[in-house]
């Protein structure tokens, strides 16, 4: 592989790479604002300027500048080399690139940093970006001096509502045009552009439009400063109190890799944002997925119910066990869920096949929706393929078949995971007993005789298989609320209450059991680089 020299490092590159791309791939960061690995090159922030040594025997291109003699105050004509933006500069074999080792680069970056902050309001105490702001980070790294301009800064529009999700502050904006390029290149809806000239520049929405396509929150995410803020996150949390886990989006079968940001002090989720995975979502997520984290706190069941009555978890498990004990296996159906992880479904499948002895396996899922050809998949369930793989040669039948069987009186008892359904479920009222294990309220919950509160995906670690067949792990962020427990744990307790020798205490116990089943896939730990809050692209 060809390589070039960046300061003292040898950086390998692929033909066509720019210097910043090649360095980024091996984890070396050249400071930048406007460059984004998933967007076209704009080269307008001028933060990534580097010095390139001229080829041997050729003079460097020099520019005339002026310095001042510190003692006499006299101007002294001086020369400086022409610097190149690393985001635009194509890597070449043997190239000698100086980033941190060049005093000219240090001066240029310091100047860019000072100029970016020249008319910036420096309202960090009330800015949501504070703590994950490039301006703050690079001020420390590349400037570190006080502002020299003492005059009033230029004032521009503030709190401009761009659409239902995004609010814009032109004074904080550095006109890097990442949001403009994102809308045009990724969301395919060029609804943003720059207006005015010079230091009066600002980002605007097309006249007669709103920023309302399916990926508006990504504009906030790619914004390196606090210019674009999300209505959802605005003024809600300070990012330095947040922690992140590597999650997988539950919104559809694409399985976008994400970071789930939560506050460990109050066990609350605050934000869902993309995590780089070039095989799945590249750098992006849709609005639906980014806002989907809110569901983890909404329409929840956090204690067990028998009928209408709230009971202890133990009483709930016992009630469920006695409900299941009264029926012969051929009248009992078990419903797996495309909404739950492989671990949860494996536990239920094991209980059904190996202990309860029923072959009546069904699957429930959310109804299909729209696909957009960018990221969103028509299958709105995160683990459809995982459940199918689990069941192997005898795939689970759709929920509609179960309803028909209930109508025909063949099934009287059902043990189901999750309350979602792809269709009307009135037939369930003919059941004698429905035992439901679910985190959320939903169509099935109204018919449950016994309901056990499962943990949400945010409260438990699990494997999800996306439509491409990639098994990915989503990590637990917060502790399960109140009596909620991971579904596999509830299923284990139910099994034990039924008198079976199921001993799953930890997730690793379930996964050990899964290891013997070729259909039961456990995802390897997330391999994408872990970035703390705010350090992602």
């Amino acid at each position, binding site marked *: 592989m060809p390589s070039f020299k960046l300061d003292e490092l040898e950086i390998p590159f692929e033909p066509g790479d720019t210097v910043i791309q090649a360095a980024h791939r091996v984890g070396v960061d050249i400071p930048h604002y406007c460059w984004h690995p998933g967007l076209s090159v704009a080269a307008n922030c001028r933060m990534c300027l580097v010095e390139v040594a001229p080829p041997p025997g050729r003079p460097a291109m020099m520019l005339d500048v002026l310095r001042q003699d510190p003692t006499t105050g006299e101007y002294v004509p001086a020369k400086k080399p022409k610097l190149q933006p690393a985001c635009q500069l194509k890597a070449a074999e043997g190239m000698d690139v100086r980033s941190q080792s060049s005093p000219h680069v240090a001066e240029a970056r310091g100047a860019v940093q000072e100029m970016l902050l020249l008319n910036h309001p420096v309202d960090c105490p009330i800015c949501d970006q504070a703590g994950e702001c490039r301006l703050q980070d690079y001020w420390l790294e590349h400037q570190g001096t006080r502002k020299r301009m003492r*005059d009033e800064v230029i004032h521009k529009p503030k709190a401009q509502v761009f659409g239902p999700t995004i609010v814009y502050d032109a004074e904080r904006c550095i006109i890097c045009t990442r949001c403009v390029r994102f809308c045009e290149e990724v969301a395919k809806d060029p609804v943003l552009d720059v207006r005015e000239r*010079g230091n009066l*520049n600002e980002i605007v929405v097309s006249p007669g439009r709103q920023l309302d396509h399916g990926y508006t929150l990504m504009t906030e995410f790619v914004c390196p400063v606090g210019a674009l803020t999300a209505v959802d996150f605005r003024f809600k949390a300070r990012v330095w109190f947040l922690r992140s886990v590597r999650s997988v989006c539950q919104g559809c079968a694409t399985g976008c890799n994400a970071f789930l940001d939560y506050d460990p002090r109050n066990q609350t989720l605050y934000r869902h944002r993309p995590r780089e995975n070039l095989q799945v979502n590249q750098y992006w997520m849709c609005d639906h997925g980014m806002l989907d984290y809110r569901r983890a706190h909404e329409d929840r069941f956090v204690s067990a119910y028998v009928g209408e009555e709230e009971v202890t978890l133990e009483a709930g498990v016992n009630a469920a066990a006695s409900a299941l004990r009264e029926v012969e296996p051929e009248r009992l159906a078990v419903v797996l869920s495309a909404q739950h992880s492989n671990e949860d479904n494996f536990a239920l499948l094991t209980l059904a096949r190996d202990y309860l002895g029923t072959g009546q396996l069904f699957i429930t899922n959310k109804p299909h929706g729209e696909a957009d050809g960018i990221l969103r998949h028509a299958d709105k369930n995160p683990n459809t393929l995982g459940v199918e793989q689990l069941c192997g040669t005898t795939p689970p039948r759709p929920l509609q078949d179960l309803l028909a069987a209930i109508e025909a009186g063949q099934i009287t008892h059902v043990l189901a995971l999750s309350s979602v359904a792809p269709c009307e479920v009135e037939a369930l009222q003919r059941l004698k007993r429905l035992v439901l294990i679910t985190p959320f309220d939903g169509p099935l919950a109204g018919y449950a005789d016994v309901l056990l509160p499962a943990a949400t995906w945010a409260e438990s670690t699990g494997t999800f298989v996306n439509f491409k067949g990639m098994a990915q792990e989503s990590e637990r962020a917060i502790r399960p609320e109140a009596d909620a427990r991971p579904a596999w744990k509830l299923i284990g307790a139910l099994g034990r209450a039924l008198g079976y020798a199921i001993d799953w205490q930890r997730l690793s116990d379930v996964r050990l059991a899964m290891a013997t089943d070729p259909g039961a896939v456990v995802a390897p730990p997330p391999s994408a680089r872990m970035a703390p809050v705010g350090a992602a692209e």
Partner: protein
Amino acid sequence: MLKRTEFLSKNYGVEGGWLIEPYVKSGGYQSAKRALGMTREQVVAEAKAAHIRGRGGAGFDCGTKWSFMPPPGDKPHYLVVNADEGEPGTFKDRTIMEMNPHALIEGCIIGAYAIGAHAAYIYVRDELHLSKARLWGAIHEAREKGYLGERPFGQSWAMQVYVHTGAGAYICGEETALLNSLEGRRGEPRIKPPFPAQYGAFGMPTTVNNVETIAIMPTVFKVGGDAFSRESALHDLGDGGARLFGVSGHVKRPGVYEAAVGLTLRELIYDLGGGILDDRPLLGVIPGGSSCPIMLEEEIVNVEGDERFAPYNGKSVLDLPMGVDTYRRTGNMLGTCCAIVLNDSVDPVRAAQNLARFYRHESCGQCTPCREGCGWIERLFDKVVAGEATLEELNQVHQVASNIMGNTICAFGDGAATPMLAFVRKFRPQFEEYVRRGEAERNARRAALGSGDHGRSLASEAR
């Protein structure tokens, strides 16, 4: 060496001189006819022999630029003529378009043929309404005669010329910003590479030439490339032919004059321009549009190690022939060859402030150093002029300008920084005088009020 010529300006001032009849009568369109009978390589070679340095300000050799165009392929090529003449003090292209538009149209045929294009776009600055009207008139006349169309002069080289109205921004004179504007996009310079010869107008191979560069081409093919180059006193320096010189400001006869390359500034000012207005002393000259550093009479040429400069060493820069390389080697910039003459009634501080305001207003705002730096310099100069600046702030000007220099996508940043650096370096005492006077006034006010603190708060209120 002053040698007046009339290649472009023969019909200047003649009523109806812009029409096709007088143009054809004096041999017009014969060059285009001749060029279309040559091979493409021959046309480029002829242009190279003429050593036409780009007349828009950058001074790049036109024939060489044409030779960068790829060989004809499946993509159409375009010739784009930059008629967005907006550099302060520059007004030569306008005279061609208004009084000799057919030279430009004929030049377009030659240039387009040389680069393999069948269409030429003339991007005209919005304000030049007469230019646009005359160009369209000339295009219609040429079409009627069959010089433009499917088979000009019976040759199978279909050719069309279009006039495109600019949308009014100085930055659109930068060739890639011009291309963006031509395509209907925001007029912001593109990053290079890819250069227009690979990826130009509408993503196709394109050459962008200045109006005068193209308009002189019929002359080149009429008198022959080498013969035309030898018109110039700087033929040996690869700077050939004749060009339009503009002179404005404090001269008795401002205007556009055509002369062979190699004219000195002194000749331009005193012989063509008629001398300094009111016969006052000369403060300085901005030789070729406001982006060039100001030159003072007392500056002396001193280029070591090049015997071609030996005759000029020790002389004033005003006696140095005006050429792209002669100026570059002496730390000056030829630009568009349209000099702005300032006599000693001009306050250089106010002049610098005026220019700073222009560059702040016209910066497209794409790159950080130019967007913020131009505004910062303007503020500093505003404060200097208002007597509110400190010496420390005056000392920031060259630092800011030096950090704009070379750090932007296009040459606008350099064009804004260069004159600022020249002004503060060459007129430092005048700048300091403003600062000192301002400080003295503040101190006097403070003393009159008796209390230092109170005085300071009043001074800041005055801002």
